[in-house]
């Protein structure tokens, strides 16, 4: 099967001159001709490039490769073995050898026949790649947490708006039934004024100092490090593992505050209706008698991380003056009063629950240009909480935050952590 030859169905702003090849073609094609009304012509599939072929890409890759309305045109990874493995899967699926296979993500962005990219790299590459993709006129699915720093999240959010791009952050709990229902109950006041919330993030072992090892053949370590400070290669540093690997290191993320905070803090923001704002006070362990790290919304609840004596033993628990809710994965939704979870919402209530999967929501948004359920500003605001929590943990002190100005107040050193100078020659 050859690469897509007709113009993309997307008739939105493609601000980049990347589309030079497309200039000769009409900018837009009527939706009926594009198969918008119930069928999808093979030549009008959404076309994708995948960047980062590690642990988290598996579901996205198979979920896209197996759709008849999608076509995977290229894969990219700094590990030759990984990218070739996935390239072979694409070749086997389509019965040809057309799939691009790159070490450098820029080669995917240069292709005008690719509509959208999945950015499934370690955290420190999320924004640099997503931002360049938006500049190149692509839509983006980027894994959570969306950013490595607060400043780069703001830059990406502004760019997405400026280019009219669609971006979905991979905080897929938003598309799950139980989290949606819990968020609806909280948002609509079914447990009254919420005063306390608990979130279970777990913990990583402290990142170790690692001895230098030889860089394996076919692994572009320089590119893997990208904008982060140089460290000698060790396989533990670059390993993709849910229980450790690169996730343990501050250099590549916000450790558990980012890894699970990007899920649970995101749901808390959603439930409280704070998607375009955030909490204003962050504190480290030992700040109060609860003994937990956490943060507080002005005139709103206090959130405690990893408090153990919970009522429901759920991932997230909301406590209000009229009831409580425990919510987690695998269908966990518990309420007090017990029948709270069964109450149907009335028309006057805010309806939040998703009616499609997280990936479908992205695919449909590419077609309609509707905001995704976890769009860039939402991802930025949720990641901001992760980063501020991490800064508070790292500096072992409280942080005051102004969410409207997006400034850390009265602490120059903490404020510097809002960004991280990038290693040359990497830029944003």
């Amino acid at each position, binding site marked *: 099967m050859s690469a897509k030859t007709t113009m993309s169905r997307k008739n939105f702003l493609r601000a980049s001159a990347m589309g*030079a090849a497309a200039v000769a073609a009409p900018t837009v094609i009527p939706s009926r001709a594009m198969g918008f*009304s119930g069928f999808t012509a093979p030549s009008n599939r959404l076309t994708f490039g995948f960047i980062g072929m590690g642990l988290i890409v598996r579901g996205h890759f198979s979920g896209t490769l197996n759709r008849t309305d999608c076509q995977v045109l290229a894969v990219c990874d700094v590990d030759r073995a990984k990218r070739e493995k996935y390239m072979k899967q694409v070749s086997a699926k389509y019965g040809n050898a057309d799939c691009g296979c790159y070490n450098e993500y820029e080669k995917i962005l*240069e292709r005008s026949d690719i509509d959208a990219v999945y950015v499934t790299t370690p955290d420190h590459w999320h924004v640099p790649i997503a931002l360049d993709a938006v500049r190149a006129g692509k839509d983006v699915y980027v894994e959570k947490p969306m950013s490595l720093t607060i400043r780069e999240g703001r830059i990406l959010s502004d760019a997405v708006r*400026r280019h009219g791009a669609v971006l979905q952050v991979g905080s897929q709990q938003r598309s799950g039934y139980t989290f949606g229902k819990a968020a609806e109950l909280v948002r609509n006041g079914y447990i009254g004024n919420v005063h306390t919330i608990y979130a279970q993030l777990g913990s990583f072992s402290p990142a170790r100092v690692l*001895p230098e090892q030889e860089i394996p053949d076919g692994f572009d370590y320089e590119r893997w490090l990208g904008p982060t400070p140089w460290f000698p290669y060790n396989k533990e540093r670059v390993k993709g593992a849910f229980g450790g690997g690169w996730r343990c290191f501050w250099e590549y993320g916000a450790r558990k505050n980012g890894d699970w905070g990007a899920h649970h803090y995101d749901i808390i923001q959603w439930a409280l209706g704070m998607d375009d704002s955030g909490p204003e006070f962050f504190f480290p362990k030992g700040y109060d008698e609860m*003994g937990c790290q956490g943060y507080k919304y002005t005139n709103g609840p206090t959130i405690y991380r990893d408090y153990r004596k919970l009522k429901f033993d759920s991932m997230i628990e909301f406590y209000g003056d009229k009831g409580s809710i425990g919510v987690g994965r695998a269908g966990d939704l518990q309420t007090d009063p017990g029948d709270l979870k069964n109450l149907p919402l009335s028309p006057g209530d805010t309806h939040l629950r998703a009616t499609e999967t997280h990936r479908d929501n992205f695919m449909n948004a590419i077609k309609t240009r509707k905001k995704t359920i976890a769009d860039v500003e939402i991802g930025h605001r949720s990641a901001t909480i992760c980063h501020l929590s991490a800064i508070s943990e790292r500096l072992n002190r409280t942080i005051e935050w102004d969410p409207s100005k997006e400034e850390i107040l009265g602490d120059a050193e903490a404020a510097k952590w809002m960004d991280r100078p990038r290693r040359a*020659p990497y830029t944003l």
Partner: protein
Amino acid sequence: MFKKALLTLLLMAAVSQAAIQELIPDLKSEDLKSQKRALLDVLAACSQASAPDASEEDRKAICLEMCQVLKDNPPVQEVALPVLSNLERIGAEESVPTLEKLLNHDDEHVRDGARRALVANPSDAASQVLGAQLKNRKARSPVETAGLIYALGERQQSGASRLLVGALHSKDSQVFTAAVKALGMLNEDVGIEALMARRVREKGLRLALIDSELLASGRPEVFEQLMNKAETDPLRAAAFMGIVLSGDTSKVSDAISSKNPALQVAVIEAAKQNNDPQLVDEVAGNLNSLPPYNQVKALIVLEFSGNRKYAQWVEPLLQSEDREVRANAANALARIGTDDSVLPLIACGNAEARRALGRLDAEGVDGQLELLAASGDADSRAMAIEALANRARRDLTPTFLVYAAEDNREVASAAAKAMARVGDDSNIKAMVQLMMVKEDAPVSRDLLTGIVEIMRRSLDASAAVLVLVADMDGARPRSQANILKVLAESGSPDALDPLVNACRSSDEQLQKTAIKALGGWQDVNGIPAMLGLAADESLSLTNHVILMRGVSRIYAAKKPNEVSKVDLQKALDTCRRQEERDALQTTYDKARG
């Protein structure tokens, strides 16, 4: 807990008083754990010295100490780089001379560490050092040149653009990219003019980067130039959106009514982003003349405007030939519709319209739906009943029961499903009785499903079971079978006893139905009862096989680690026939690994 916090604070204070120099031996240690501890101690000392309540003298002292460490040419990996990263965080003017020297260090990582520390340094002197480096040092690698260029952009150093514009001519992609992005960050006249001049010579990704920075400049005069007809439609559209968002809406009417879809999208996107009433009015006013793919986008703008006055423009699109347009029109009306939208939504009837009727929060909607539910054609009545249930009208359960008793299959089914949605324990008895009365009608199946749903979410399943069992006595076989199915499908442990009793009934028909129902049990909690019955020699072989197959199915659905081998063995011992034993043996082998 307070003790722990106090201890932490005391420890940190102690570390801050310790000289950084004293930690150097541990930083250099071959013992990696000692190295790690020392790294954390340096970090803690720096954090303490730069805390809001610390003195400037303490911060300066520790920075000068770190500078001294760096002057002594320590090992790069173990000492120089971590010390530099701490200077990056807390260093100020006192650190600049040392960092300047390190820009010429033999080791590339030290040089870049010093550059990064200068990027984050709040002193003006840091900018001067970076600028001087860029001007004076000729034999530099492209990587380092790119780093210095980008550093000046990141620092937003006023006047730095003049230093950088020459790099736009670089053929090296790293230098070029850094220059474009730095000039974009600086957003000074000279830099923007240079970017405009350069773009005519570029293509591909290089041109995309320039255009992106020009669009980010927010300058109306730049947007005007990018609107040149020689430019691509997508770029013109992005530039036009910039013009509109910067407040100049003079050409909006022409653009939205033009035949240029890209310019139409620019207006729609601008309206989406700022929800300006004038823009939204333009979008609404031109809704019907837009092509379908832009109608979809325009409908999203109207939906999120929250303004009900646009409903009248949206309603006709419920009859569009385009499926996406119909769906998005319904979604929009869910948010901005009025009571006048009810009939068009009913007439549309797609899934989105049905959902919209459940969410439309406008005066008079409930009244209209109640009227529609009471009379009219069956389709409309069924949809209205469904909508009322979706609107959480629990007060209407008596009415829904009346509708469920009607002979019209569609209406009765919708009403039974409405009961399932909003009914509770208090409705079970009435639903069971109606199920018995209507046992020959298709609605009995809907009622059965509804009762099961209510029981599954019941907080007092045992009471519900009692209601069911009470009604079973004297019921006709078909109704008894239905009740037994409800008991089995509810999955409530309270339902097991009555099911087992029915399985032991002398009424052969009842026993057969009960065995069949119990054989369909879904959870392991039913297995002891099933095995107890299956082991009874008086049970017919047919009934025995139904129960053993049920047991086998439950086990097969479990993960191997969730299956007790002892229980499985009991099941194996209970089997009368080899076929069921073989099936269980397969599960047993899996569990055993």
